């Protein structure tokens, strides 16, 4: 199927006896904004790291952008962008230097690097901060920068792990503007969040509980299915039964 860009089948990750991600099976279609919900410790980051080729699955299979998660990790990496839960750009480099470095690693030409750099700085409104060290930026701006770096090389899919964690409401709105913009360009968005208003922005959602995917549908259908007034309610009904909490 041309249209499916992420397909997993019983993908599992064990840490010793502990099963962090338990036989998760789902599909994500091209161009979708796919929300990956779950309480703390549910296994979202674990699952996402497997999909990005950062963590070796214990069992099960997955195909990302048409490539096998066991054998073709480097092909996968050429086609995805990743923004980790923990800020992981270089704090001791400037905004422009980070853009240049990661763009360079992804193989952008010098011309692209220059134009992309300027374009991003403008898009993020970081003109004044472009030559400042990243460590001096407030968290919200850092997060926006990380996102921009993750989509610098125009990947097919971008994985965002709690991109708006700890960010103020205004910046969160701006962040989602960036996500929509990327989505409009045809990039598939795979995003985790703890904010239910953000969940409503997604085309489809999965909700993980204790390592398993317990529900998967559009926000409207999920509300119907759980006879809930809001996504908050849906999430609460599912997560209430969770045994794990960090």
């Amino acid at each position: 199927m041309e249209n499916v860009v992420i397909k997993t089948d019983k993908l599992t990750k064990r840490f010793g006896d502990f099963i962090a991600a338990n036989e998760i099976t789902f599909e994500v279609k091209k161009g979708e904004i796919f929300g990956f919900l779950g309480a703390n410790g549910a296994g979202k980051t674990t699952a996402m790291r497997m999909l990005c080729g950062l963590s070796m699955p214990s069992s099960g299979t997955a195909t990302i952008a048409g490539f096998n998660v066991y054998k073709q990790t480097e092909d996968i990496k050429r086609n995805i962008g990743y923004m980790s839960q923990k800020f992981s750009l270089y704090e001791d480099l400037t905004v422009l230097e980070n853009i240049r470095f990661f763009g360079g690693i992804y193989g952008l030409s010098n011309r692209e690097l220059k134009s992309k750099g300027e374009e991003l700085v403008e898009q993020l409104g970081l003109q004044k901060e472009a030559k400042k060290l990243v460590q001096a930026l407030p968290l919200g701006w850092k997060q926006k920068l990380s996102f921009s770096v993750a989509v610098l090389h125009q990947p097919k899919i971008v994985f965002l792990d709690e991109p708006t964690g700890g960010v103020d409401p205004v910046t969160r709105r701006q962040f989602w503007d960036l996500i929509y913009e990327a989505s409009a360009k045809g990039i598939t968005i795979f995003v985790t969040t703890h904010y239910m208003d953000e969940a409503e922005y997604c085309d489809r959602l999965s909700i993980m509980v204790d390592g398993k995917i317990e529900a998967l549908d559009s926000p409207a259908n999920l509300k119907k299915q759980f006879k809930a007034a809001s996504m908050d309610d849906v999430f609460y009904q599912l997560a209430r039964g969770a045994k794990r909490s960090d």
Partner: protein
Amino acid sequence: MRTIRFLLEKEFRQIFRNRAILLMIIVMPTIQLIILPLAANYEVKNINLSVVDHDHSGYAQKLISKVTASGYFKLTGYNVSFKEGMKLIEADEADLILEIPQDFERNLVREDQQQLFIAVNAINGVKANLGGAYLGSIIRDFNKEIRSELLPISRFNGAAGIELTSSNRYNPFMQYKFFMVPGIMAILVTMVGGFLSALNIVKEKEFGTIEQINVTPIRKHHFILGKLIPFWALGNVVFTIGLLVSWLIYGIVPVGNLLVLYFFASVFLLAILGFGLLISTFCDTQQQAMFIMFFFMMIFILMGGLFTPIDSMPEWAKVLSRFNPVSYMIAVMRMVILKGSGFKDILPQLGTMALFALVLNTWAVINYKKRN
């Protein structure tokens, strides 16, 4: 290749922004090179010597004046009996007793052989033992002089030649400094290179930045090269500073070729950096890496022949030292700087070091996992 350029650009930017590292690279070696050779100087002066002379011959007189002329001994008793000498030692007034037996001169001339007796005060063991060693070499030299006097047509033809070797030998201070400085230079390069590389990748792990790298299609050997090259350059800077300091402060100019010296140091750096990077790939925190590197550094340095010659180590230690890259570095530094050894002379060490570099770096590349 382009990837490596971006890696280098980034790494150098980070290094030049990090004051602490720059300070460590420039100031630390300079200070250590100034202080260590002085502090680690075993020279002992004013060794109190008592002479028990049973012979009172011309040669005995000659020997005694030669000993006192060396400048390291102070005669605290002359013409004493052995018993009196022992009393002086007990009172801590003498460190050494030199006993010249009766018929010293006669036996020396006729039988070409004579024994001397040295008693050492073991309370201040270092002083007395070193004194004993000095005394031993003075006596050996004295013996040579006598022999060349007695056998005019001998191999020791040039009297000046004897003087020359003896003047070096009797200058333990000079010898010690010359001996120590190249060794300490080797250690500095080792420490700076080893620790910088061991802490670097692991720092990226701690800060999480390595995740952002690992999620790119970067090639593993590019990543390792991107770490290796900047530290290699820094190591050469440290080495150059070391050479400058030892020239400016100690007047030590390498007898051998500078190119040979740099070539070996460069290969050595690749090996020690590879080792550091390897440790870095095994560890998760800077603390772990620090402890592990420290463990190896202690062994490398203490068993590298800086203080204790490897020749005088037990057999198992000698075998171990063959796997110690630092021991090769110290040896080659001394060979090239002091003896003027050339490219051919250091070829065996160079080969071994190149092998170390290759194995360690390959291992680091293999052990660096983009996915765990």
